């Protein structure tokens, strides 16, 4: 199935969880925030979220800024 991950069309296997998708990014989970279809998914709940075709996922972190 196809997701829109940070604005980019991305393939993911059917039934993939948020955790698996995030995991593939190799990020330190402690410093990211995730939004699925406009709603924040709390940090501990990624494993329980099964994604669906067309889901819009935003994975953000904190970067240098003023």
């Amino acid at each position: 199935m196809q997701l829109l991950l940070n604005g980019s069309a991305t393939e993911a296997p059917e039934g993939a969880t948020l955790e698996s998708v995030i995991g593939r990014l190799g990020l330190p989970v402690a410093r990211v925030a995730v939004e699925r279809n406009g709603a924040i998914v709390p940090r501990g709940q990624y494993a329980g979220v099964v994604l669906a075709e067309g889901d819009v996922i935003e994975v953000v972190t904190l970067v240098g800024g003023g």
Partner: protein
Amino acid sequence: MARKGSLMFGGRELGSRLIVGTGKYPSLVVARRAIEASGATMVTVAVRRVELGKRGEPSILDVLTDLKLAILPNTAGCYTADEAVRVARLGREAGLSELVKVEVIGDEKTLLPDNEGLLQATRTLVKDGFVVLPYTNDDLVVAKRLRDAGAAAVMPLGAPIGSGLGIQNALNLRLLIEAIPEIPVIVDAGVGTASDAAIAMELGADGVLMNTGIAGARDPVAMARAMRLAVEAGRLAYEAGRIEKKPYATASSPETGRVGGNR
């Protein structure tokens, strides 16, 4: 009383009146050293998408964590209240902090704030439990509304972001500071050199927030130290009560007892 002692908001006392940004440094090493030299205990960060290709690279967050600094996520780049609220919530989730510097930009070329959107975002975020520090202009009528909306401080600009032009309207800042004694006033944006920071503090500001003025200097570490001292100097001068300006001279040495005088 907000004006005395150190800078406080949201129940926390910062040890410093200088808050610094973390963007635009030539390297993480320089960023770290400059932030340390600034003496700041709170720093701003932006909320941005993770870059999909990269993994595991050292980031500014490692530096900030290591230095045990309070983190103030901003909503830079947001042009509506809704965007700012969304980014603020993501920032809280990522940063585990209730603090947020709210920016709602109203003009791309000048990055001047949209105060209408800012007020709306501030109201929403205050209700949502945030400690809100809104980036605004030097309009005291807006500042009073932000205060009434529950902002923890107001952060008027001195000049456009990154311009380094210094305090453009000292009168308006002074009037705003007088009008808002209840919460801290932090001059945010436009500081280009040490005297700009000192001037902001001499007007009675409770603090100064800057980024480009330090990060963009030829030697960011030296400039960070300069800014730290200038903020302290300006604050001390404000508290010390400067002499009045006089249109003519007045001697500093005694006018009597001159050699060769007739008594």
